[in-house]
């Protein structure tokens, strides 16, 4: 393997290709760093329209922020609660009688040929 023998086109594709991948993802990073700010700005703006001061909104923001860990704990608690609910049963035991209705379908009597049956 001799990298010096590789033509310039290959080197161009290598360098430029990696660079474009970087640019594409850096571009995405930029967008996704901006989106939450825009959303927050939109929320603040709508709240301001409802005659609420920015300070109040900021205060509300501080109190509203819930970390992922807290969310996970709440979700786990709810999950366990709902799962355990299954164990609480009515304690009423009902035995239902199983009715067997007659049906000629697969009736045993039709499986035998009664004519000329040796006795």
């Amino acid at each position: 393997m001799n990298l010096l023998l590789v033509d310039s086109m290959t080197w161009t594709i290598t360098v430029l290709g990696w660079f474009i991948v970087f640019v594409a993802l850096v571009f995405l990073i930029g967008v996704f760093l901006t989106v939450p700010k825009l959303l927050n700005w939109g929320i603040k703006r709508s709240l301001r329209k409802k005659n609420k001061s920015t300070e109040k909104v900021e205060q509300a923001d501080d109190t509203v922020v819930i970390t992922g860990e807290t969310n996970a704990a709440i979700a786990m608690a709810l999950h366990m609660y709902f799962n355990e609910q299954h164990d609480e049963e009515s304690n009423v035991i009902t035995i239902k009688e199983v009715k067997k209705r007659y049906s000629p379908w697969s009736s045993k009597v039709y499986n035998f040929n009664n004519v000329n049956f040796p006795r």
Partner: protein
Amino acid sequence: MKRFITLFGVLSLLFSLQFIGGGFEAFAAGGAGAGDTFLEHASKGLETFWKFTGFYNLMDNPANLIMIGVGLFFIFLAIKYDYEPLLLVPIGTGVILGNIPFMEGYKIGLYEEGSVLNYLYFGVQQGIYPPLIFLGIGAMTDFSSLISNPKLMILGAAAQVGIFATFLGASALGFTPQEAGAIGIIGGADGPTAIFLSSKLAPSLMGAIAIAAYSYMALVPVIQPPIMRLIIPKRERLIKMKPPRAVSKVEKIMFPIIGLLLTTFISPSALPLLGMLFFGNLLKESGVTERLADTARNAMINIVTILLGITVGASTQADYFLTTDSLKIFGLGAVSFMVATAGGLFFARLMNTFLKGDNKINPLIGAAGVSAVPDSARVVQHEGLKSDPNNHLLMHAMAPNVSGVIGSAVAAGILLSFLM
């Protein structure tokens, strides 16, 4: 009982009459020659049958036995060590199927036009299956860790160095630019992308490329940890990252739409892959198409995985597959995985030099930049726990992991646009 015996007797008499008639005719034609004709026919029939058997045809292609051994080894790895069983069992079975020797010309083999396997292989040849797999991946992937910490996306780009380094290496080994591009994508650690690109750029090498990509993806837990331990010092492996913030539903819905628009505008050649990936994610996150998302991430991806695995496996017929080129591809694939992992790890360390305090990242997550989802993220979690049993890195590692999928698809698009 009497009736039964009578009926049986009449039937056997009728059955034997035709032989008696035939026997008379044969006797009239050639006397004692009738017995010879029967034996001749029988031996001819047996000879034809023998020529149709795999045992006879194996004499022409004894190398098929090696490939059958490879197929059995894949199945063994999948069942015994649980290495990507959903892929290795269909591929292993496909390798066995594709290497059973048969008489050509009867529409049996994968490369014979009109055969059943050939029809199934159409989805691979024309790059139909990979986008459908991407649809399923999109519908089952949660991008919230990426949305909450977008800067980790850069690690997904850094790990794509494996693709371009392998492209360079393959060119230096004498492969044509198109073949080198198709081989390079193995470094993306993304099976469907590798199949998609090789079907367009180098269909003749697709079997080897796909098998190399999937084999190394299955071996991620073996390949990555030593490189991680080599590059990342112990004290850096202990870094604890702050938990990701909660992501709102609007952000989750906007992600696939913005991602689709941006990435496909930059690299339209990867439209089938990226389009399906983000479409699948939109089905999942929109909250109003749960039935479609459910089908995409369960039934459909399972069906396509079966078809893809079995046909890719069957495409490795010994006479097409056992070449020096395949060996080179396997060697390059191994190197590309290592380079990609190292690229992600080094870049993560580099990022840390610019980050302060709480914002520092655990450089181990750089290894998840290769897009073997979710295996490499799982390896990072495992390695993190080895250094500190309370340090859970899985959620953080998922961000570079899924951005690696996007990065490798973008890279595939770039290679396509340069080399088509």
